[in-house]
């Protein structure tokens, strides 16, 4: 445009804003293109693939125990659920019945991880919102969960709990550990409810999140959104209710209406007490007995598929076994399905809300960047 030709007020200005792959607003590398008209986002495009490492290709031909521990390295936030699901594929294929006590320990770990993932989401959301105090508060609450995870698994991030046939002997829950978990979850429950009361009573925060970047129920189903982001639009769908290992536990599936940022944030806040409820039931009724079944035998299997409810949504793992080695592994992570929602949610909203609209779907691009494009010739 010529510099002495200033646009008139009626004329709208179209521009393209590109962020990434390394940008201050996004911790993970991904690329966003926002097509803007008068500061209103008209279209958005998210490009992933920048941190593609090819985990599935490395898994090809590895012994199944090694391949399972590699799936844990797909994601540093929900590492346990990847390992659990991958182990579950082998257990389904080899028809292994795991001891009841091992199942309870796995569920305790999965729910602790869900709490830490949701708290991280809330902390990240508040940081993007511009409320650093809440963000630091939530990091402080999250530290309790991290210490519990370190106590059980021996590491803060990659705690390999599940092995084929049960759980690792190190992760046995004795009386002392159970007491510490009880104290930890009491603390988290109280602090999270304090946070929630302050959060919903703050008019400044509500003005930025209420009704912004909403997705309707119909669009969410059309875009194949999963997990808490889907439940925030009002769809009552939680895989935990149908999973066999969750049958002994009594919990409610939380849903919200609207699918906007407020509904998404409250969704995670309200899911934390439900996870705590499951952990309490598991600690109260934990059966005695062995934690690992070592009597299983290796054999070849067909392709086995397994779905679980990860903190971000539906997680899919599948592979087949051949001479004790993994062949044709496929992983589908929840963030992969939620990319459509991230692109769709920001359309029609102000450019300042765009980053928040992307963060509301709880993106985890490390999980997502494994896909291999297969071109048929």
């Amino acid at each position: 445009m010529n510099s002495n030709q200033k646009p008139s007020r009626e004329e709208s200005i179209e521009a393209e804003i590109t962020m990434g792959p390394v940008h201050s607003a996004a911790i993970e590398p991904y690329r966003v293109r926002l097509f803007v008209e008068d500061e209103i986002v008209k279209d958005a495009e998210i490009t992933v693939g920048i941190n593609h490492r090819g985990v599935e290709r490395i898994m090809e031909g590895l012994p199944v125990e090694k391949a399972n521990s590699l799936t844990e390295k797909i994601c540093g936030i929900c590492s346990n659920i990847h390992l659990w699901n991958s182990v579950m594929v082998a257990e389904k294929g080899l028809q292994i019945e795991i001891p009841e006590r091992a199942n309870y320990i796995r569920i305790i770990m999965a729910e602790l991880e869900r709490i830490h993932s949701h708290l991280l989401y809330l902390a990240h959301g508040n940081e993007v919102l511009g409320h650093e105090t809440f963000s630091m508060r939530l990091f402080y609450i999250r530290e309790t969960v991290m210490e519990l995870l370190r106590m059980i698994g021996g590491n803060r991030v990659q705690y390999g709990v599940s092995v084929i046939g049960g759980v690792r002997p190190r992760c046995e829950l004795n009386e002392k550990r159970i007491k510490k978990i009880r104290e930890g979850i009491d603390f988290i429950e109280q602090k999270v409810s304090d946070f929630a009361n302050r959060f919903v009573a703050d008019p400044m925060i509500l003005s930025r999140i209420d009704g912004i970047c909403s997705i309707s129920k119909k669009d969410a189903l059309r875009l194949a959104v999963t997990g808490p982001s889907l439940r925030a639009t009002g769809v009552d769908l939680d895989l935990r209710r149908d999973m066999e290992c969750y049958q002994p536990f009594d919990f409610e599936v939380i849903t919200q209406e609207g699918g906007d940022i407020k509904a998404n944030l409250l969704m995670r806040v309200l899911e934390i007490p439900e996870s705590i409820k499951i952990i309490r039931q598991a600690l109260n009724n934990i059966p005695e007995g062995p934690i690992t079944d070592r009597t299983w035998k290796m054999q070849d299997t067909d392709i086995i598929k397994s779905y679980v409810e990860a903190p971000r949504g539906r997680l899919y793992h599948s592979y087949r076994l051949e001479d004790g080695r993994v062949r044709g592994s496929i992983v589908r992570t929840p963030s992969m399905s939620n990319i459509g929602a991230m692109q769709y949610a920001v359309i029609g909203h102000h450019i300042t809300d765009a980053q928040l609209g992307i963060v509301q779907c709880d993106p985890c691009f490390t999980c997502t960047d494994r896909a291999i494009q297969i071109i048929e010739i």
Partner: protein
Amino acid sequence: MSLRSYSRARAVHVMLVYTGGCNGCDIEIVNSIFSPKYDAEQYKLFLTWNPREADVLVVTGPVTKYNEKPLKEIYNAIPEPKAVIAAGACALMGGVYKNINGDIPSEEIMGPVDKVIPVDAKVPGCAVRPEDILSGAVAALPKLLEAK
């Protein structure tokens, strides 16, 4: 101690670059600087996302193909004196993704980090512990303070 190094020691800005790890190290680093428990800000260690403001570059991850060029550009954009910390097993030797003794060597990984840019301090761990990050930052400080 000169006035320059005295004031430099009181405002060390750390930039975190993520080159394709698993998110674990990054959250631990942000946690060690940001969260009230470890709180590196009390030692005047601040997190920044602007390379022109930064003194210390913390690199995590095994440097994937697409991240090699941005990483070099970020390194060149940081003004002298600067120090680089490679944090985590992936940044030190490629980690599990490099598939070092595997049948198929990985073509996606250009790392470890010291193949791409010079590294001053190395912090091991998978994932790194927040305490180790602080000691890694302390190990990189003399390079900043003694520079003229």
